[in-house]
């Protein structure tokens, strides 16, 4: 198993190389001039030229790419133009606050999705099943920015129960932060909950119609054990794949939610960086998100090996 994990780790390197190259090229294709963005519209042409030189932007693209690659290998992500701070520390400060809403959201989605999915599958064709599967369909199709704005309108503006935006202040107590977390978490959890419940339902349905479940029932095993232990465990693999993708997606996918609620996480950092043509920051952030994606997918593979003994790349005992 260790060998397999090691091989998967080595496979990360080419993927990251492709990601770095692509983001480098794509950021250069965003219209606008970073030097102009830093200095503002009033700056003179000479000043902008000077700025371009200090930023290294007047060099040929190939030379810029080479410098950037060398720096990354050294562990230097560069300095953000707009914040004038090292990219690495900027990102490091934002990640925890993104995780603060992303992790609870995925956790809630996973639990709620599994509960709904299993119950729907067991009561296939009943009212419960229809209602929740329609809700799930609505959930996956809901535009997040619209949902976010409606939530703010209802719970913050009209009812006044929850704060409109921001992260709250920890000095006012944990309760304040949690109150600020509620709406972004809910918003972020909508799509994953719907996805999880649909995947769980179809996966459970497939397994409860199988021979092994019929055999368990014939052996007089309690229905709750049959469903929640045996059927659920054999239905897990597709769920874990989706869990991995959702979790990774939350690193980046919080962009819309964070923007609506002005949550100071990775999402708002990236949006700001794009607005300011902050090439270095965009590249750094994308690299970190890509790294998260690849790492989580590697973990998914490892978990696969644990829950499904058939996926044993070394074979045998």
């Amino acid at each position: 198993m260790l060998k397999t994990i090691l091989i998967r780790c080595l496979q990360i390197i080419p993927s990251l190389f492709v990601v770095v190259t692509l983001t480098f090229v794509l950021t250069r294709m965003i219209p606008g001039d970073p030097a102009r963005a830093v200095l503002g519209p009033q700056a003179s042409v000479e000043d902008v030229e000077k700025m371009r030189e200090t930023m290294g932007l007047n060099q040929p693209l190939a030379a810029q790419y080479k410098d950037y690659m060398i720096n990354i290998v050294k562990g230097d992500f560069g300095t953000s133009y707009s914040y004038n701070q090292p990219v690495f520390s900027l990102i490091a400060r934002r990640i925890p606050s993104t995780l603060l809403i992303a992790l609870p959201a995925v956790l809630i989605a996973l639990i709620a999705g599994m509960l709904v999915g299993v119950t729907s599958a067991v009561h296939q064709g009943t009212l419960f099943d229809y209602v929740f599967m329609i809700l799930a369909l609505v959930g996956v199709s809901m535009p997040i920015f619209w949902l976010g704005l409606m939530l703010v309108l209802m719970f913050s503006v009209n009812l006044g129960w929850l704060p409109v935006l921001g992260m709250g202040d920890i000095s006012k107590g944990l309760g304040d932060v949690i109150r600020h977390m509620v709406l972004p978490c809910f918003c972020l959890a909508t799509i994953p909950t719907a996805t999880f419940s649909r995947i769980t339902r179809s996966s459970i349905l497939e397994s409860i119609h199988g021979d092994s479940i019929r055999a368990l029932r014939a052996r007089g095993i309690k229905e709750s054990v049959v469903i929640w232990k045996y059927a659920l465990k054999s239905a897990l693999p597709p769920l874990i794949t989706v869990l991995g993708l959702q979790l990774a997606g939350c690193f980046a996918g919080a962009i819309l939610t964070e923007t609506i609620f002005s949550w100071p996480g990775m999402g708002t950092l990236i949006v700001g960086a794009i607005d300011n043509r902050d090439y270095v920051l965009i590249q750094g952030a994308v690299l970190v998100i890509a790294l998260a994606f690849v790492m989580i997918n590697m973990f998914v593979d490892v978990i696969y090996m644990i829950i499904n003994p058939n996926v044993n790349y070394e074979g045998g005992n």
Partner: protein
Amino acid sequence: MGEVLLTVNDLKTYFYTVSGVSKAVDGVSFHINRGEIMGIVGESGSGKSVASSSIIRLLPARTGKIVSGSIDFDGTDVLKLGKRELLSFRGRDVSMIFQNPMTSLSPVFKVGHQMVEMICAHHKVSRQEAYRMGEEALRKVGIPDAGRRMDSYPYELSGGMCQRVIIAMSLCSNPKLIIADEPTTALDVTVQAQVLELLKDMREKNGMAILLITHNLGVVWQMCDSVMVMYAGKTVEYTTCKELHHNPLHPYTWGLLDSMPKLSSNSGEELATIQGTPPDLRLTGTCCNFSNRCPYAEDLCRNQVPDLKELEPGHFVACHRQGVESRLFRGGVKQHE
């Protein structure tokens, strides 16, 4: 021996599908004595599996339904069992062995874990004790290196080995009846013989009755005491194994017997078949189900459902052409008496 263990009376199990009601089992009666091996023979779709699943009420929850009849098991009315009683009835009083051993065990838990689950469901023992019992049961069914097998996943075992595990599992609670639904169909021929031997052996040792569902008459001759031939949800012939072997009376049974390959036949000779296909189970109930394929069918056969008649002591046949007075002979030739 001799004492009745299971009595099934006029059992009707129907499937309610979108396209109509399918009469999978339509008025079947039989009984099994303690320690007896009874066979149910029939082609695919004849209702033999549904009849056997009905005994432990293991039917698809939304579509399958036992419409009428009674099932009496050792003095208990199975159809009146509550949820909890049914759980202890299944697995403890009656065990079931399915056709495909590779898929009858959960692929994601180790053999030992599944054995412990089964044992703990029916016995008040600790998990360690259950584990020890499971290991012992594996040894009893002739699994070498039982300790290591307990720690294996089902995919690491061969089909025959899996079937042994399942048999071991069913024996753990010492059931009075084992329902074996085509237990050897998915196995190699050599392994088939071993598994059948094992079942027979277990019957000798533990004295449980076995209901053997098969489409292979050869298996019936080898194993069974009594046998019921089913066709399109109905019993066509029901008697002792010996009687059926020497004196089959229903044209469908003749067809089955004729279509068995014989060692004496020439290699170039074509296998005999029964012409036609079984009727649609949603449309049965107006005539003899076999009339469209029966070379002996008359007008009466196409207009009226035949009753199951006792033509000879203990030999029941459902055929209009077979009467106590007027006997039909196989292929038109008089059989040996």
